[in-house]
């Protein structure tokens, strides 16, 4: 990838079109560029009022948000690029940094007129000016916005804006992005000024960032600057060898408690809403295939999607709060050593954590990992984390086979299942780093930003973004798979091909049941019969569908809402010889299977999107199903040896 953009964007020609009327004024793109944590999101919010749509850029799979702003005589499109440290250093194009680079290069190739609006944290001016120099050397047309005016002044320092602008020969504005109106007005003025500029001196590329920063940042009150910063004081506790990990564990516990305690009532509410809609539709469409297809096939799938929304939103908000506050990097610092044992680093920590709610946003979050091998390993391991979709099935199985045990035993089994997910992830990572993704990786280099109070509007925007992305990417897959599975579970096999009696319920004569029976010899060693096999086929696309499918098989309506009657039927189920169909061993094997198998088409689709190949999603399906079968077999056998009935 060449860091040098094509000629139409050269700084020597920024005056092109400057005198055109608004009718003919050409398209202008404003690319918002800056280091991660430089205050880019706040500035984007201030400039656009938070309004955003996802831009469509060939070759770029990451959501680059854009919005139109008014520059007086013309409109401009502001594109919010992922964080970027350098445009010279070599990076993998699929990471966040690589995406930003590709975007700048592609815009240049298309010959777009583009202003690069660089956001610099004024408290780390020299660092930002390095990137400014690279941008100017690459002949980009740059406007600099120095943020954190309030923090700088709080430290007893100020920025000589005029001197800085002269030195780099580009407009510079110094703002406090929390003052939204002032920021928007001054940045837009600077953009207009840059568009109207007729020439540049051409000597601006040769400044020394460190020396220049030392010259333009003026010490007003040396006593204040010498004081220990709030960040240093906070780090003394939060990164303390003893207290740090304790605080970290508490924060993580609170986060998961929030995801489950807050999301649960909201999910029930969504479920109730979808249930109501299904009932209405059934009344309206009457009985029959079409009604069943719409109510069970389509709305059932949509209900699944909606049920996950609260968790996704809460998790994104929590993650965004951690990231915006600066604590996330501290978490990575604390767990890096642990993750390195597994061939990963502190950077993998966020995706692995997110994977405990849903693998789909977690796989997208791997873009913060700079190293391609580490990123791939994390993508391949994330599906093993205990996502919230596993919970309904765990609850059904535990409720069915461990009903007689106390609440503590049941809670204990849940905890064991969570750790089983983490453990399987660790083992998979260890194996993968020694096989499929072996090789050296870049060691950890992670910025530790200053602690800051997150901005509510920015957090809200991110939450909305991830919810809509989930709805779009995952929603479509789940609804489609749900429709296909409806067909498999409904369409009957010809009488000659099925062993089920003609008067048996429709599902027993269905294509899925035929496949389930055909699979019985394979799954018998695990204690599964054809009914569980059909449940597994039903949950191939989305694992939470297991409960609903088992409900259909056992003729229990609305099993997803109240699994108790289904539990009873499953306990009472008999084999042909009259023995109970399922034992505790079957339950343990089934739980083990669900811990490992990647029964989630949305995850597979996300992996395909992020790795841009069908090889890796196929690999994930293959390795998780083979491992799930092997472990379930092992659990069934060991439980038998231990005398579990």
């Amino acid at each position: 990838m060449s860091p040098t953009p094509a000629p139409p964007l050269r700084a020597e020609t920024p005056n092109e079109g400057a005198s055109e009327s608004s009718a003919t004024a050409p398209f202008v793109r404003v690319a918002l560029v800056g280091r991660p944590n430089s205050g880019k999101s706040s500035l984007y919010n201030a400039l656009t009022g938070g309004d955003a749509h996802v831009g469509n850029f060939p070759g770029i799979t990451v959501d680059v948000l854009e919005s139109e702003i008014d520059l007086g005589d013309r409109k401009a499109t502001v594109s919010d690029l992922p964080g970027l440290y350098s445009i010279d250093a070599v990076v993998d194009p699929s990471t966040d940094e690589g995406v930003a680079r590709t975007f700048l290069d592609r815009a240049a190739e298309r010959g777009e007129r583009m202003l690069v609006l660089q956001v610099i944290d004024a408290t780390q001016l020299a660092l930002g000016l390095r990137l400014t120099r690279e941008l100017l050397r690459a002949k980009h047309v740059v406007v600099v916005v120095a943020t954190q005016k309030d923090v700088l002044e709080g430290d007893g320092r100020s920025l000589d804006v005029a001197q800085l602008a002269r030195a780099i020969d580009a407009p510079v504005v110094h703002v406090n992005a929390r003052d939204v109106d002032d920021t928007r007005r001054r940045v837009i003025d600077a953009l207009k000024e840059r568009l109207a500029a007729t020439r540049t001196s051409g000597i601006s590329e040769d400044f020394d960032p460190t020396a220049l920063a030392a010259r333009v940042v003026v010490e007003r009150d040396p006593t204040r600057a010498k004081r220990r910063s709030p960040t240093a004081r906070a780090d003394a506790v939060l990164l303390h060898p003893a207290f740090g990990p304790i605080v970290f564990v508490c924060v993580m516990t609170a986060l998961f408690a929030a995801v489950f305690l807050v999301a649960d009532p909201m999910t029930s509410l969504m479920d109730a809403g979808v249930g109501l809609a299904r009932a209405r539709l059934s009344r309206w469409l009457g009985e029959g295939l079409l009604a069943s297809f719409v109510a069970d096939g389509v709305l059932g799938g949509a209900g699944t999607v909606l049920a996950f929304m609260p968790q996704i939103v809460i998790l994104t908000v929590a993650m965004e709060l951690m990231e915006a506050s600066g604590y996330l990097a501290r978490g990575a610092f604390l767990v890096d050593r642990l993750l390195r044992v597994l061939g990963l680093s502190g950077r993998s920590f966020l995706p692995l954590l997110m994977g405990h709610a849903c693998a789909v946003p977690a796989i997208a979050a791997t873009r913060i990992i700079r190293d391609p091998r580490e990123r791939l390993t994390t993508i391949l391991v994330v599906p093993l984390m205990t996502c919230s979709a596993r919970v309904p099935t765990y609850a059904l199985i535990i409720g069915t086979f461990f009903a007689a045990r106390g609440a503590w035993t049941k809670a204990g089994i849940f905890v064991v299942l969570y750790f089983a997910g983490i453990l399987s992830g660790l083992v998979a990572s260890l194996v993968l780093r020694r096989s499929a993704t072996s090789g050296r990786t870049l060691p950890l280099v992670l910025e530790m930003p200053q602690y800051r109070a997150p901005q509510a509007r920015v957090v809200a925007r991110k939450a909305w973004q991830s919810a809509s992305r989930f709805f779009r990417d995952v929603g479509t897959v789940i609804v489609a798979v749900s429709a296909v599975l409806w067909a498999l579970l409904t369409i009957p096999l010809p009488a000659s091909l099925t062993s089920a009696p003609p008067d048996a319920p429709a599902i027993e004569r269905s294509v899925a049941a035929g496949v389930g029976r055909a699979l019985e010899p394979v799954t018998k060693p695990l204690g599964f019969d054809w009914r569980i096999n059909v449940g597994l086929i039903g949950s191939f696309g989305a694992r939470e569908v297991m409960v609903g499918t088992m409900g259909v098989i056992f003729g229990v309506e609305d099993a997803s809402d109240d699994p108790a009657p289904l539990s009873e039927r499953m306990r009472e189920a008999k084999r042909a010889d009259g023995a109970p169909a399922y034992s505790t061993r079957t339950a343990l094997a089934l739980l083990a299977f669900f811990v490992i198998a990647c029964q989630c088409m949305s995850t597979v689709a996300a992996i395909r999107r992020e790795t841009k190949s069908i090889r890796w999603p196929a690999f994930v399906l293959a390795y998780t199903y083979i491992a799930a079968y092997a472990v379930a077999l092992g659990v069934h056998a060991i439980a038998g040896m231990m005398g579990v009935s």
Partner: protein
Amino acid sequence: MRTVGRRAIYLKVTFSNVSDLAAIAPGESALVTELHLEPDVAAWLHAVGIGMGERITVLRRAAFGGPIHVRTSVGGEFAIARSLARAIATKP
């Protein structure tokens, strides 16, 4: 997904009379004299402020050989893997 080549990221350290960043005690600072790293990695580190001629202050070290928390002369703070710090030669 593209992967980087399999060549070693660390180059062989040829100077034995210099200290490295991993050996600097917390609270102390040192001047970077050389980076025994692949050019790509060195260039990226330079871009973030950990390059030759920069003064780096070590703030703390994570337990059990974990990363080192450093502050660069331009004010950025970074967590860097200890193995990487060993490849950064320094003098007082």
